[in-house]
């Protein structure tokens, strides 16, 4: 699956990082608690979250995720978009809620990866 596929499956929009949309992704994680993301993540390229503040971008940076999907119609601020651009992180937005968004990706073959 590529980032472009994620966008299509989630009927999402791309906020920045269009140039990375052909990058392959093999696993994802979904959480609104960034400490949980940091605790249990390993090689998850995509982070789905309903949290919308600059720490989401920084958390993605720390775990080497290169795509963030904001769920429930959340829209990143200009400051967050700038941070993401500097770090080569693609930002997508979808109106779907967490459970459905994760389920849609899972049923299309994306998995959560192994625990750290």
């Amino acid at each position, binding site marked *: 699956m590529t980032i472009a596929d994620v966008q299509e499956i989630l009927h999402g929009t791309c906020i920045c990082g269009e140039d990375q949309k052909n990058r392959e992704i093999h696993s994802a994680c979904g959480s*609104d*608690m*960034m*400490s*949980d993301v*940091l*605790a249990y993540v390993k090689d998850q390229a995509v982070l789905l*979250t309903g*949290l919308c*503040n*600059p*720490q*989401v971008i*920084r*958390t993605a*940076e*720390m*775990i*080497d995720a290169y795509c963030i999907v904001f769920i429930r119609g959340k829209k990143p601020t200009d*400051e967050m978009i700038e941070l993401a651009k500097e*770090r080569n992180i693609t930002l997508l937005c979808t109106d779907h809620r967490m459970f459905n968004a994760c389920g849609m990706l899972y049923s299309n073959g994306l998995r959560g990866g192994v625990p*750290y």
Partner: protein
Amino acid sequence: MSEVKLSYTISGEDFTRAGEASGDVKSKLKVLGVSPEIVRKVSIALYEGEINMVIHAHGGTIDVVISEKDITMVLADKGPGIEDVDLAMQAGYSTASENVRALGFGAGMGLPNMKKYSDEMNIDTRLGEGTTVTMKVYLQ
């Protein structure tokens, strides 16, 4: 590789900037050619520590020394100190405010995560004076 030293002052005022130092350390380690797995361990441990400093201690200082055999991180603050270190080390225990939780932290995973991603960790804390956390990640 000769020894590399990095120093940062962490502002306790602006939560949105928390993580800048950890991000900078991460990019420097990458340039130095440190393996991605080690870079991630150091970045996450440091990032959690940096967040803790901002949430609990009004900022502080971070000193990182990268030697041939390990990476040492010293996070020092003049905050309130930790009343019960054993309790603070328990996953899920947190004294963070609802406000902090709304920002995605304060799940009681900060110190446990720091221990998890470092090879050695020592906490020196005095109530009313401050806390110094020293973490080491082995390179060999």
